[in-house]
């Protein structure tokens, strides 16, 4: 939590005033029983009507002052808490987007999303309630105790207060301590029912294909029964809270009145003062329960804060470093004995990769599932860092490039075709903010996505929904290709980008890429030999190693893996 407190920096004034005003309110509230006592003892005792009127007005005044103090306090605390969480979310968002692929892989996106939404909300609530109640509740509890001692300095009647506070705390916090882990259990069982519901929706076809409906029902009913049991258990314990506190407070009141009566009998207390003590006792009960709830909220908020802090503690493992010097040798991309090992992996995903590509050449990368094709192209844009060896772009080590400079040179079409909420035009401008409609249309045409655009009467203004839901997989894929082309990149990387395209479209796409006027260096990752057989250089990967490099014909005769892949797709006798 400590580290997150910097986000409260701009709200020092609010953080001081909110609790302060809350405390004032509590103090005013504490005076009320005293006023009532004096109404009874002095006003009624002496039959002084004016005094009674005066005291009642005083009570209303105390209430009004209390109210205005609270308003100030609530405003300050709401301002501080919301300001805090907005700043926190801003920094967290910024921090998360500064992380490199390695950290994104380790943390997982769903957990990152959770940190940004649920966790920050919880922390906000925690701060808001802390500012509001943390001063109030103790002030009322201990204030009531002190007031009781002031009323009865002999401590004989007010001593019961100490015992009551202890007994109540024991009950309230004891029940809390026992139930918190039980509530966690309830939550985890609820999570399993949620998971199973979602599973049954996403897997509905498989479930019905295997006629598993009945079995799934039984499984789900068992899960809800388990959830029910956990809920009942925790319910049984937390159901004790109110009845126990009620009984304790009333029994204490009995003792209080009895002890008070003894004091009155010997003239040490008045009737009004006994009523005052009784009122203080009631105030303590209400505040203790509030305090217990506050502590639950704060514990939750602290756990969330810890999780957020954990994210802040992880920083990007990549720095810009090393010599910026470039040996301009006409090579667009060079790999010098490069190995890549992912974090936490025991074996290298790429080993001793060594090749170079001249500017404007087309490189095909082929290999089986998990052979390291994507890993290889990810190194060009320095999305991961090589374990050993050097990756050079235009003769300069990628580690020495500013990330933006490096990535501006590269147009990537990732395996997963992702578009963002916004118009087609906005999406296309990702690569180049200054691109004109003409540039965009040209890129779209090259990417064979003209028909996608033509089908939408809004044209470039067509609104793409979150995640590109309102487009088909093939449409999305072609638009992501267009997006990469808009920036006219020096290096174009197509990572298995034609998997959702049929052969005809794929072939047309290759043709139009060949005729681009700015002649980018093109990397095509594919599992189809057809997609890469025209390349100037084909790299064949197997289990992270290069097992063949050369042109199609050379590989066909010289590389066993390549010829196997080729033959699996083109049976000689077939054509």
């Amino acid at each position: 939590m400590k580290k997150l407190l910097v986000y409260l920096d701009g709200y020092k004034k609010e953080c001081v005033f909110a609790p302060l005003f809350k405390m004032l309110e509590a103090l005013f509230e504490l005076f009320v029983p005293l006023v009532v006592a004096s109404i009874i003892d002095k006003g009624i005792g002496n039959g002084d009507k004016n005094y009674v009127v005066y005291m009642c007005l005083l009570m209303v005044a105390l209430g009004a002052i209390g109210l205005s103090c609270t308003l100030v306090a609530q405003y300050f605390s709401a301002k501080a808490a919301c300001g805090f969480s907005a700043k926190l979310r801003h920094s967290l968002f910024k921090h998360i987007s500064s992380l490199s692929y390695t950290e994104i892989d380790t943390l997982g996106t769903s957990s990152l999303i959770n940190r940004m939404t649920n966790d920050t909300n919880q922390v906000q609530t925690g701060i808001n309630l802390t500012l509001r109640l943390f001063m109030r509740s103790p002030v009322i509890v201990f204030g009531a105790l002190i007031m009781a001692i002031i009323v009865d300095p002999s401590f004989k009647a007010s001593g019961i207060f100490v015992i009551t506070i202890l007994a109540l705390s024991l009950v309230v916090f004891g029940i809390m301590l026992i139930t918190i882990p039980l509530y966690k259990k309830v939550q985890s069982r609820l999570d399993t029912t949620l998971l199973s519901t979602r599973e049954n929706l996403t897997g509905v076809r498989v479930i019905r294909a295997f006629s598993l409906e009945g079995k799934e029902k039984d499984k789900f009913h068992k899960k809800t029964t388990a959830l029910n049991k956990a809920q009942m258990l925790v319910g049984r314990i937390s159901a004790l809270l109110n009845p126990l506190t009620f009984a304790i407070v009333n029994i204490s009141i009995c003792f209080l009145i009895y002890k008070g009566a003894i004091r009155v009998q010997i003239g040490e207390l008045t009737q009004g003062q006994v009523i005052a003590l009784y009122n203080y006792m009631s105030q303590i009960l209400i505040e203790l329960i509030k305090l217990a709830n506050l502590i639950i909220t704060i514990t939750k908020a602290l756990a969330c804060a810890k999780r957020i802090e954990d994210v802040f503690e992880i920083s990007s493992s990549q720095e810009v470093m090393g010599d910026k010097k470039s040996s301009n040798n006409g090579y667009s991309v060079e790999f010098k004995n490069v190995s890549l090992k992912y974090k936490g992996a025991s074996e290298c995903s790429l080993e001793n990769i060594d090749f170079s590509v001249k500017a404007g050449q087309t490189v095909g990368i082929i290999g089986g599932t998990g052979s390291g094709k994507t890993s290889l192209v990810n190194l060009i844009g320095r999305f991961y860092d090589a374990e050993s060896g050097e990756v050079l772009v235009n003769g300069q080590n990628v580690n020495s490039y500013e990330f933006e400079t490096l990535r501006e040179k590269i147009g990537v079409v990732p395996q997963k075709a992702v578009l963002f909420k916004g118009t087609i035009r906005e999406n296309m401008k990702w690569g180049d903010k200054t691109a004109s409609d003409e540039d965009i249309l040209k890129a779209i045409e090259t990417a064979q996505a003209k028909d996608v655009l033509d089908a939408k009467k809004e044209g470039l203004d067509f609104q793409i929904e979150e995640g590109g839901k309102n487009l088909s997989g093939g449409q999305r894929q072609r638009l992501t290709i267009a997006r990469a082309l808009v920036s006219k990149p020096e290096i174009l990387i197509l990572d298995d980008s034609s998997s959702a395209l049929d052969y005809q479209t794929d072939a047309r796409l290759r043709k139009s890429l060949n005729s681009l006027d700015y002649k980018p260096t093109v990397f095509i990752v594919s599992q189809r030999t057809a997609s890469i057989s025209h390349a100037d250089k084909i790299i064949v990967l197997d289990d992270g190693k290069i097992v063949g490099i050369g042109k199609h014909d050379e590989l066909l005769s010289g590389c066993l893996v390549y010829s196997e892949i080729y033959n699996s797709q083109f049976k000689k006798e077939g054509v």
Partner: protein
Amino acid sequence: MNMSTIKTVLSYLKKYWFLIIVSLLFAAGSVLLSLYIPILIGDGIDLIIDEGLVDFDGLLAILTEIGIIAVVVGILQWLMNLINNRITYNVTKDIRNRAFDKIQKLPLSYIDSHQSGEVVNKIISDVDQFAEGLLMGFTQFFTGIVTIAATLGIMFYLSWKIALVVVLLTPLSLFVASFISKSTYSLFKKQSEVKAKNTSIINEVVGNLKTVKAFSHEDEELERFDEANNELEKVSRKAIFFSSLVNPCTRFVNAIVYAGVALVGALLVIKSGGSGALTIGVLSCFLSYATQYAKPFNEISGVVTELQNALACAKRVFDFTNEKEEVSDKENEKLTVENGEIELSNVSFSYTSEKKLITDLNLKVDSGMHVAIVGPTGCGKTTLINLLMRFYDVNSGKILVDNHDIREVTRQSLRSSYGMVLQDTWLQNGTVRENIALGKPNATIEEIIEAAKASHAHSFIKRLPEGYDTVISDEGSSLSQGQRQLLCIARIMLSLPPMLILDEATSSIDTRTEIKIQKAFSTLMSGRTSFIVAHRLSTIKEADIILVMKDGNIIETGNHDELLLKNGFYAALYNSQFESNEQ
């Protein structure tokens, strides 16, 4: 409020009617008894008049009575809580089970057209909110009403003049509470809208962070987020501030009532001049009622919103459980496939009435034939499978399996005669073993390993941390897409159904592994009627019939060589692959 929703709610509560009545009786009992305590305390205080004037015998008797009542109230409250918990949690369970069972009976068209998150939300959080909001809300509402009525009754009985002060000041309390809850309601609604917008940006950007980074688009996205973030800050501040006004404002109203009672009460005591008409004890009793009196009003106004919200949740849940189900097939006989002949005659189908998809499709597949379906994206390949498996029903025409109209046999028997591997691999949360044995739960481990070997999944399963007992899930990405697909194939290898449907079954597997699987498949497929959808021409070249589909219609049929000779759409498709190869 919607009457039919309330009726459904009552139908769920019906079997707990006895518990509900007991709970209400306990609630009323504990409220009345706890309201009696201030009277007793007042009486007690009247016995402590002044120095030397304390009636200890009387006081002790009263205090003992208070003690006993306090314990009894405690027990009643506890029992009431237990009963309420039981009702709430059981109703939650009942509704959840019913809703989940519903999923299994809904037509695929419903599930396909609704986001899974939406349905999950109904079954998980809406049910929770409904049960807690409704039942807890109802108890609070009931005790609130009893408290108010009883307090008023007692106050009028003790002193109608002071009681009148309280009654006159009551509207103030109601007005404040309703004013605040109204204005906070709209603010909270606004807040949740802005929050949803914020969350969707977070989901989009963080979920696709790699793409954002590849385009160095971090700053632009931060800007977009900041805009929504700042808006959220403003709205939240207002919403939180206004909602936090409820307590202090009612406290203030309370203070006014309290002062009013003290004023009128004290003056009346002075006026009665100790004649006993109104004692200090009664005044103290009034004061403690005054503090308690405003609370139920406050609660009731909160409860009303909560009840409305609960009913809204209930409506969403019940709308779901009342969705139209698939036509029952209980009466139908079971299909036993002997030959595996499939015939489609004059089949027409479309998902929406505006857009025609399949029109007048005719096809006859003989026993043991292998049918390959090819064509561009969106040509209706997946739709055909939806119809064969009867995930959707045809609009007109009919589909026959071994001369049985598939609408006249049970869905279960039809579907279990097909082995299906879909493009979207789906794994269940559970062990690898359970996932393979999905179609044959009583399979031995030897059979499972055999199936895994046949689908070439054994070697990677062996390397998983706990082999066949490794727990996997649909969302966990610990397995690659190709590995997931191998597991789905292993399922079919194990259950060995008489007919096969393979939709893009090997799209994520590299071609060399694919060849091995193809071999396994051809063993599997021999003698089995099979439908194969694939982009890869090599996969389907050996099929007996190739259906070339375009825009929902079959435009060409024949085997590979025949179709090439035809020099039509298929030939063009095939040559595009060939041509590029020769460049």
